[in-house]
Structure formats: structure tokens, C-alpha cells
């Protein structure tokens, strides 16, 4: 029999027992819907994560630290390379050298220190970090109140929401709803903070710079230490309150207050590393605890990392983390897929049941068709066509259903996000491949379910089938 005839006969047979076949088809739809729902949730979450990570700048950033820094990442290679004392110092020339590497967009020092900020004559101790102007595109500043720094040297500060709460004495108790950023921003924007900090100052050097001796030994240079620490004050104007936390990845060392990079540099704030690199103070050449290197193209991260390692520094990029993240998503995907398919598997039992019932009911009809010339193959194909039609119909309805469920959940969640004054998210995606895959999968499952009933119908003995009324 030809395909159009098969389809026509199959659809007419499905219409003959509409209720039973609709129920079976709905069963398939629910199975497909659950598969679509699961996989589109997976896809959506992955997209959301990737976008977040890409926008956060973490994907195109390499963190560089000196091997002298014993608090380094504790990697194997540190033991293989030169001893910490002998390895290179992460100073301004090193930064410039890194910035000149191919594919590097910029390399800026991570300036980060704990100090006291006075607001309203009350002191607040907090972690401060410096940001380059390019950080403006960071996703974390999306929902920001106010604006970004007016220039790289402006005496301005951006506060993280939780610090703003602290300044206003509005820290919500655990579990209570967070106050709105806009409300927090109103009394704070444009106000002045006073930062008290310790400035590292080179004392007038009695000897020529100690560079040569330092390179061989860090210990003997303490004797030649010559610098002073001066207490200073700096006024800062609050220009922005960021809703999200730009430094979630840093955990407990994340900063709550941000300054423009050049301003922070010019302040020569005493940093923890200075204690070990004490002698460097004499040269007035800044030494950095770490440097963030922005790469032009995330694909080049590895190459740049290698080049920097060759210079004798430790590197770390989120790429390693993202690789394992991708692994996690693959597992999540398989898991969601298996979960979604389970409902479809149950639905396929429904198909088998419906078709076996149909054989019993249409025993005589099958006998008639064989008597007037239908081959085993014709009968088999007819049952396959019925199974396939239920599969495709169920698949189409199911994809729509799954999509609708996703839309409703997305909509609902975004209403909630909005009530929390968070930006809307799209964590539910039904890509075209998923539509095709789901319908195809439903079709395949239904055909497999049709295998047994179709074979049974084809084997039916026409003489027996026609004997019984």
C-alpha cells in the first residue's frame, strides 16, 4: 500500500475509536511534554549560565599571581618550577610585558585591601577593590542604581547593596525580604565617604636599589628595609549602588566597595603582599599580589595562559572551572532526558495496549482485508501507520504543551523576579532541534511500540478471523 493510503486509512481507523486513541495520544503528549520541559529547562539553564559567565568577563580573564606568593593556588607545577624565592616578581614591568602579549586586551593589577570607611561619622571596616573602566560592561552592574565611575581617576565609589544596607543600618534579618536597591540608593547617591588608609611611602634610600640581591634571596633584603607607613584620608563620592554582587566567585574575600583603578593605584595603599615584599617599597615600584588579564577572545585563553606561565607566573582561569561545569551540564542533561523519557516509556505501553485492543476488535476486518488481497506487509504497515500517527500527533501536541508549560513557569517566575525588583530571566528555551528531536523521538517510540501489535496483526489467520462473528 502507498503511504498516502496508509495515512488515510490509519487516520480513519484512529477516528473510529476516538476516545481510546485520543487518550493514548494524550498519554504520548504528556510524555513528550515532560521530555521537552526537562530538556528545555536544561538548555535554558545552560544558556543562562553561559551568558552570565561570558558577560561577567570571567571567561576571558586569566588571573596571574607570583610564584613567590606562597598562598598561591597550591598547584603541582609550583613545586616543579623554580623555588618561590627565585621566581619572578609581579611588578609593573611584568604587567606591561603581559599586556604586550598577543590577544591580550588589558592587564590590570588586582588592588584589594581592607580598610575603614567613615560615613555619618561612623566607621565601617570593609574590603575594597579597584575596577578598570572596562568592568562597566560587567553583568553584575546591570541593575545598578546611579552610574559607573566618571573617570579612571575620579574620587568616586560604587557600593555593593549589602554595604549600602550596612551604612544605612538596614541589614534585614535572615529570611526577611531584601530591601529594594532603589530605596537604598536614594539617601546614599552623591553622599561622601571618608576612607582612612595606610599609605606605603618610600623612605629616602641610602643605598642604590637592591634589585640584584633581591632576585636571589628575599630574606636578606629585610635588613635594607626602608619605608614608612603614613595614615591618610581620601574623600569618595558615592556614584552607584550595585544590586548584584560582582564578586560572588571570590567568596569571603569579595569586596563590597569599588574604586576606579587608577585612583586606587595612585593612593599606594599598603597591601598584604607588601609585608613580604617589604624591600620593594624602597624602590617605590608597586608589586602586585595578582593581575587580571583580559583576553580579546575567550578561545585564546589557553594560549595566553601558557605564555604567561612561561614568564614564570602562576595562572588561573575560569576555563578549567567551565570545563567541569560543561561536564555537570552533560550529566544534568542526561538525567533530565532520562526522567523525561520515562513518561514517554509509560505512554508507549499505552500504545501497545491500544493497538492490541484494536487487533482484537478489528479481527474480522483484518480477515476481510486479507481475503480480498492484503498482504502481511500491508496489514503490518497499517498498524505501524496508526502507531506512527499517534506518535507524531502526540509529539506535536506534546511539544506545544511542553512549550506552554515552560512559558507559564517562565512568566510566573519573572513576575516573582519583578516583585523582588530583579531583572527578568529567560531560563527556559525550546530550541528548534529540541522540537524536531522530540517529535522524531515520539515517532520512533511509537513505531517501536507498534512492532509487536503490527507483527501480531500481520500473522492473523484470515480463515480463523472470518469464522467468528
Amino acid at each position, binding site marked *: 500500500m502507498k503511504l498516502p493510503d496508509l495515512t488515510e486509512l490509519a487516520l480513519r481507523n484512529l477516528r473510529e475509536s476516538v476516545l481510546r486513541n485520543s487518550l493514548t495520544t494524550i498519554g504520548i503528549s504528556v510524555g513528550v511534554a515532560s521530555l521537552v520541559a526537562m530538556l528545555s529547562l536544561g538548555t535554558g539553564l545552560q544558556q543562562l549560565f553561559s551568558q552570565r559567565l561570558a558577560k561577567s568577563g570571567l571567561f576571558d580573564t586569566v588571573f596571574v599571581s607570583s610564584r613567590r606568593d606562597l598562598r598561591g593556588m597550591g598547584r603541582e607545577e609550583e613545586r616543579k618550577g623554580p623555588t618561590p624565592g627565585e621566581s619572578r616578581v609581579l611588578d609593573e614591568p611584568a604587567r606591561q610585558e603581559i599586556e604586550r602579549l598577543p590577544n591580550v586586551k588589558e592587564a590590570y593589577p588586582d588592588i584589594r585591601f581592607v580598610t575603614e570607611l567613615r560615613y555619618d561619622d561612623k566607621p565601617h571596616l570593609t574590603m575594597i577593590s579597584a575596577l578598570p573602566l572596562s568592568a562597566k560592561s560587567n553583568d553584575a552592574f546591570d541593575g545598578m542604581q546611579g552610574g559607573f565611575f566618571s573617570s579612571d581617576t575620579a574620587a568616586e565609589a560604587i557600593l555593593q547593596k549589602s554595604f549600602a544596607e550596612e551604612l544605612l543600618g538596614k541589614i534585614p534579618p535572615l529570611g526577611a525580604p531584601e530591601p529594594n536597591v532603589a530605596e537604598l540608593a536614594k539617601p546614599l547617591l552623591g553622599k561622601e565617604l571618608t576612607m582612612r588608609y595606610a599609605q606605603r611611602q618610600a623612605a629616602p634610600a641610602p643605598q642604590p636599589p637592591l634589585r640584584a640581591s633581591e632576585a636571589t634571596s628575599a630574606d636578606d633584603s629585610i635588613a635594607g628595609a626602608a619605608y614608612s607607613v603614613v595614615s591618610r584620608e581620601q574623600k569618595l563620592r558615592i556614584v552607584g549602588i550595585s544590586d548584584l554582587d560582582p564578586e560572588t566567585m571570590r567568596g569571603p574575600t569579595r569586596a563590597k566597595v569599588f574604586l576606579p583603578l587608577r585612583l586606587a593605584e595612585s593612593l599606594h595603599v599598603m597591601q598584604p603582599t607588601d609585608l613580604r615584599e617589604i624591600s620593594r617599597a624602597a624602590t617605590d615600584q608597586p608589586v602586585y599580589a595578582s593581575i587580571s588579564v583580559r583576553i580579546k577572545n575567550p578561545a585564546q585563553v589557553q594560549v595566553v595562559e601558557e605564555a604567561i606561565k612561561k614568564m614564570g607566573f602562576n595562572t588561573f582561569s575560569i576555563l578549567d572551572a567551565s570545563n567541569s561545569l560543561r561536564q555537570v551540564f552533560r550529566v544534568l542533561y542526561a538525567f533530565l532526558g532520562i526522567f523525561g523519557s520515562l513518561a514517554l516509556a509509560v505512554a508507549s505501553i499505552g500504545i501497545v495496549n491500544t493497538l492490541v485492543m484494536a487487533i482484537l476488535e478489528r479481527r474480522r476486518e483484518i480477515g476481510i482485508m486479507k*481475503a480480498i*488481497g492484503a498482504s502481511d506487509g500491508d496489514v503490518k504497515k497499517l498498524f505501524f501507520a496508526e502507531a506512527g500517527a499517534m506518535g507524531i500527533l502526540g509529539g506535536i501536541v506534546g511539544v506545544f504543551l511542553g512549550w506552554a508549560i515552560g512559558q507559564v513557569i517562565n512568566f510566573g517566575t519573572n513576575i516573582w523576579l519583578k516583585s523582588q525588583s530583579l531583572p527578568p530571566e529567560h531560563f527556559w528555551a525550546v530550541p528548534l532541534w529540541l522540537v524536531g528531536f522530540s517529535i522524531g523521538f515520539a515517532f520512533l517510540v511509537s513505531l517501536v511500540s507498534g512492532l509487536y501489535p503490527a507483527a501480531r496483526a500481520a500473522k492473523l489467520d484470515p480463515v480463523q478471523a472470518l469464522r467468528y462473528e
Partner: protein
Amino acid sequence: MTTAPVISAARGTIAIRSENLCRHYRMGETLIRAVDGVSLEVRAGEFVALLGSSGSGKSSVLNLIAGLDRPTSGSVIVQDRDLAKLSREELAKYRLHVVGMVFQSFNLIASMTLAENVELPLRFAEVDRSKRVSLAREALERVGLRARMDHRPSELSGGEQQRAALARALINRPQLLLADEPTGNLDSHTGTEIMDMVREFNEQLGMTVVMVTHERALAERYAQRMIFLADGKLIDDRANVPTATTAGVPGGRA
């Protein structure tokens, strides 16, 4: 009528030959010999009646000739095809193209209109849709049911249903018409109407007809030969001069 006569087997040659044909059923311990060593010959264009009491094996013989069943032993040869040696696929082709069947209980598919029922064999033969429609219309016209082509079988009388079944049996222009008690469910007037049609196919289209019946009178009126079965065995095979003539019977085609 535009339906062309079937000119495949020349009249008089052997169309059906069975030799020592057996069909046994095993029911637990007992062996049922439904057909037990039947040897017969039917010439092309002949109108033969298979007679016998209920359970004598008439339907079993007919089903073996129709290729719906396979012999336990012996052979059935229809127009040089040894049916026992055909594959299931080849048997289906044989039923589709060589045999037309009608049954006592009409056996139309209830969910299809008359036109759809009649064209169903053409679907299995993969005939184009447009051609199917015109062939079905033509066949229904031949049995006088063209006006009812869009009705379902349940909306028709028994006689009309059997006429539709005849149209369906005719649609692939088979050389063989096998009828299993075609008038068994009909009153005598309607039965006569159907029998006249069968005879018309036999005479005008040259179809070989084998008709199962347990009514000897009916066989005497239409058949050229009568074969008697009892307990699965052939007990008599005699020629007959049909008493009903083409012109002489009232009713004819409606």
C-alpha cells in the same frame, strides 16, 4: 457496460485442479478431517456448485482454493500455480489479482462507505487514486448501487450489501469468483437477484465460478456441475443443466 471481459484462461482449459487434497485440524487428542482426500477439476469459465450438509468441508475446500488456507497434504493448482508452494506474499498477490470472494455474511467493512469498500482491493494493488474512484463507480454501477456509493453498509439491505460485495469481488477483474453461501442470509427473491448477477459475471465476463451452497435447488438452477461433499470426502460429481435461463428469470438487475 464498459467492464472488459476477462480473457485470460481460454474456456475449457483446466482452471482449478486438486489432487488428494487434505486439511486436517488437531483438536487436542482428536484429528478433525475437514477435507480428506478431495480430487477435483474445474474448467475455465465453468459454474460449479459445491454441495453438502453443514460441516461437510465445503468452506474448507473453498478457502484452500482461495489461498486463504494451506493444505495439510495434497495439492491445489489454480491456473498452473501450485498454491501450496507459494509464499505468504505470493498467496496475497494471488488472492488480490486472481480471486474474487463473496461470503454469506457479506463481510463489508462497517466503517467505510460502499465506494471505499469496493475500492479497497485497488489500494492493496496500489492503483492511482483517480483511477480507483472511476473503477469503483463503474463496478457499483454494474450492480446497480451507484446512487448509494457514499452510504455505509449498515444503511443498506442485505441484498444491497451482497451486491456491493460482488462489486468489490469484481473490481480487480479476477478470473475466479469464489462464493461461500452467497444467498444464505437473503430471502429467496433477493437471493435470486444475486444469483442472476453471479451468472451474468460467469457468462459475460467469462469468470470461473465456484459456489458453496447447501441448497440443492439453487445449485440445480444455476450450476453447470454439482460436486457433493460429505465428511470432507468427495462423494459425487455430476454435470447439471441449469434450469434458470438468462431471459427466463424475472427480477434480473435492479
